[in-house]
């Protein structure tokens, strides 16, 4: 409630500001608004998506130059140049994204540095764009027949658009694809296993960020009525990034805060530093550089979270409403073969991690895969689920060969998994984490999300997530941050997330590790219930009490090969298994 009041007060101050503030302040606020738009895109890209760009100023330049050129040379109406500018920006962003985003995270920023420099020199050297002198005489915008000419009029336009962008960004992040985007930072592998197309999600955030920058540039051109290459140089691109880091890369309001702080500080430093140093020049960059290093050392999340600490927020996590249940997959008949691995071999260089492995899992059974450390169990799991495909041999799922498919295509076919090292997004609520599991059960994309036309589907997805959380006995933790749960419970969240995908085969990698006795008992109950419902379960586990009490059949691996297979009792009595576990050194022989 108090935060709503604060927001209301902020909006009211924004609305009333121009009535009392001097012209100079209005101009400053206009620039802050324009910079904040670019910074907002970078929040999405850097703070949320874990990527970054130094070339945002170049996208601003595309917005400004497109409208400058089209309106002055071809007399096109400014409102028509906006879609043109956005289209050009999107094309460039998609191309740059395509060539850099499939590689390591640092290729995008390096690519954008090169792109920022190239475009700056291009603007400066192309005759029809006016070279370094630029283009003058850009017409004013007209809105509903009124010319938007003065700074005060523009102020309302800029800030209305900025607030609209803030709203859409928040909507976008609070959705199915928004969760996928938020998973990019530190959760790509998990997201892929849940069926998220992570390269696509990366390209989306990069393009959206570029479009925000382009809009800012378009507005800038009509505010200034004149463009030249200087404001679109790489150093401006770097300054945008500074705004985001200082303001708080993880928060939409951080963009506005950062734009404000850096812009005002710059104004002030440009006045004072040359006087202090007795020379003229852009010495503010020294302060900015040191400030950045300080912020990154001492307050990596930026200033906004520090500000939030003064006004502790009440939890406003999404609540689950009643919604129609999602359609369920019809499970295959009990006893029918779900998964069949035939002669699978996996090599890493010269090392053979899986050697001619075969196993089957049927609907309605729990199959346990056991073996000493380094026997190749997790490798087998990764091969089955498509994270690291086999070198030779075949994997059949529901009769279809899947060894060449990507993790997300296999997930789509009804296989879902958990990870040995828990892969949750610690800052997100349990509900949202589990909802990522239901990713493939929704269809609406980020555009629907931005305009909130996917609320019905979103409600269904969250409802489904809530159902799975309750099923796993975690209802009381639904709205807590996943990272705040003890490890045992986090493992159960992983299972709930896998179940939200509505699988017919569940792959569980050490689900009982780190669980207490009662938690293990509850997990055993849950798995028995799932088995009873007809789910097939493949389980890697070290806790032998747990495995032997639960599994229908057991496969024992050693040195990447199958050592034994059979009922739990048979396997426990098998001398080869005993040797594999306790070591095979013959004591009579001196070793």
């Amino acid at each position, binding site marked *: 409630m108090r935060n709503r009041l604060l927001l209301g007060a902020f909006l009211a101050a924004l609305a009333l500001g121009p009535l009392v503030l001097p012209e100079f302040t209005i101009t400053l606020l206009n620039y802050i608004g324009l910079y904040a738009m670019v910074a907002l895109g970078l929040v999405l890209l*850097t703070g949320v998506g*874990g*990527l*970054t760009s*130094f070339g945002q100023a170049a996208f601003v330049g595309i917005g400004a130059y497109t409208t400058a050129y089209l309106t002055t040379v071809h007399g096109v109406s400014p409102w028509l140049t906006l879609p043109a500018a956005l289209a050009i920006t999107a094309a460039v962003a998609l191309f740059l994204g*395509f*060539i*850099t985003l*499939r*590689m*390591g*995270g*640092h*290729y995008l*920023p*390096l*690519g954008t*540095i*090169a*792109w920022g*420099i*190239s475009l700056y*020199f*291009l603007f400066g*050297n192309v005759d029809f764009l006016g070279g370094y002198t630029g283009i003058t005489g850009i017409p004013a915008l007209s809105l509903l027949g009124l010319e938007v000419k003065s700074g005060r009029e523009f102020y309302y336009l800029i800030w209305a658009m900025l607030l609209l962008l803030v709203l859409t960004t928040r909507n976008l992040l609070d959705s199915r694809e928004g969760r996928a985007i938020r998973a*990019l*930072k*530190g959760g*790509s*592998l998990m997201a*892929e296993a849940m069926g998220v197309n*992570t390269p696509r999600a990366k390209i989306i955030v990069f393009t959206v960020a570029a479009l925000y920058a382009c809009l800012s540039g378009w507005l800038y051109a009509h505010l200034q009525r004149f463009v030249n290459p200087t404001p679109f140089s790489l*150093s401006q691109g*770097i300054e945008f*990034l*500074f705004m985001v*880091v200082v303001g708080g890369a993880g928060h939409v309001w951080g963009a506005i805060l950062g734009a404000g702080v850096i812009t005002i500080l710059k104004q002030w430093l440009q006045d004072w530093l040359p006087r202090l*140093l007795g*020379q003229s*020049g*852009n*010495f*503010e*960059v*020294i*302060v*900015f*550089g*040191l400030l*950045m*290093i300080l912020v*990154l*050392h001492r307050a*990596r999340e930026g200033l906004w979270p520090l500000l939030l600490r003064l006004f502790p927020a009440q939890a406003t996590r999404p609540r689950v409403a009643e919604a129609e249940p999602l359609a369920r997959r019809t499970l295959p008949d009990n006893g029918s073969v779900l998964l069949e691995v035939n002669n699978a071999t996996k090599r890493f260089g010269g090392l053979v991690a899986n050697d001619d492995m075969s196993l089957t899992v049927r609907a309605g059974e729990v199959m346990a895969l056991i073996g000493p450390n380094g026997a190749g169990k997790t490798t087998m799991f990764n091969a089955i689920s498509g994270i690291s495909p086999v070198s030779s041999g075949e994997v059949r799922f529901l009769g279809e060969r899947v060894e060449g498919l990507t993790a997300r295509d296999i997930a789509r076919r009804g296989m879902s998994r958990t990870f040995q090292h828990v892969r949750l997004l610690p800052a997100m609520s349990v509900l949202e984490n589990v909802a990522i599991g239901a990713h493939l059960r929704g269809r609406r994309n980020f555009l629907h999300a931005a305009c909130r036309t996917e609320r019905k589907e979103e409600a269904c997805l969250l409802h489904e997530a809530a159902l799975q959380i309750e099923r796993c006995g975690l209802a009381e933790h639904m709205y807590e941050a996943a990272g705040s749960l003890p490890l045992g419970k986090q493992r159960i969240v992983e299972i709930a997330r896998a179940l939200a995908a509505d699988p017919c085969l569940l792959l569980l990698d050490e689900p009982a590790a780190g669980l207490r006795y009662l938690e293990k008992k509850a997990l055993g109950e849950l798995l028995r219930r799932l088995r009873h419902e007809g789910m097939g379960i493949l389980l890697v586990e070290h806790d032998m009490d747990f495995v032997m009490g639960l599994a229908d059949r057991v496969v024992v691996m050693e040195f990447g090969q199958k050592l034994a297979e059979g009922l739990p009792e048979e396997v426990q009595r098998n001398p080869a298994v005993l040797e594999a576990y306790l070591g095979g050194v013959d004591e009579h022989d001196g070793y």
Partner: protein
Amino acid sequence: MDLQIVLLLGQDGITSGAIYALLALALVLVFAVTRVIFIPQGEFVAFGALTLSSLQAGKLPGTLWLLIGLGAAVAFADISWALRHHKMRRVPLILFYNCGVPILLAGYLLAVSPATLPQPVQVALTLAMVVPIGAMIYRLAYQPIAEASVLMLLIVSVAVHVALIGLGLLFFGAEGSRTTPFTDMSFQIGDAVLQGQTVLVVVASLVLIVALYFYFERTIYGKALRATAMNRTGARLMGISANLAGRLSFMLAALIGAFSGVLIAPITTIYYDSGFLIGLKGFVGAIIGGLASYPIAAAGAILVGLLESFSSFYASAFKEVIVFTLIIPVLLWRSLTSRHVEEEE
């Protein structure tokens, strides 16, 4: 275009290519050892060139004050660390290296008139001032967050770059300068003239590359750096600390940068901000090598030099556009050939 022009452009291209190759090697080294994408590499080129030219003009270079300031900051950081860990014995050594040596250097420069010193002494003084700055920057800006993500370290690099550019302007002003050539010899090959200074740049670069090769292949410290790049945990278990490796690699990067600056200072006018573009061209070479392969990075850098020199002949205004657009097909090729799903830290 006749042969003479081709030779002239080729000569130019190889000269700058040799410098870019040196920088590319430094970038690959720093990235492999510390995961830092060292954007400020180019600033060391500019600082090397401008420090030498200040000395030749008989002025005290601003880099000296930077060295003293950073040294004091490092001493402060290290001594407060030593106090917290009850390692008081280290304090005299910390003070000597970080404060004593810079002050001795300053005292020497004040006592003599630097402009009258022989050129090799001027070069040695330049390196003595610029090279420690590399290690100090590592200590202050990177070491406290050495475990951060590549992205975070990259942002720090950009911040360091920006701060150094500002300091460069403060120290050396906006005017560019050149230094006295090391040699005024020239050779006649057919119709073309081969400048002695150009030969010197290429030969000196080669010598430095060979020296680096021996350092990495034959000395235990060089091997320790390579080991850190290959396996950080393994190296730590051998007692090769990440801090030591970081400081060493940054010092080498600063040495390579300053040395490159000294080499090109007589043939190009260097401004306080010239280093950035020079460094980035080294980067294009390093990226061609995937930030991992030294020979491919060096070859890529020479290609960049040639491309630059020929495009400055054909379309001089678009020289930078052409060089930096080269990165696009390289990235495209790398992207299409890599089938790697990366998990971000």
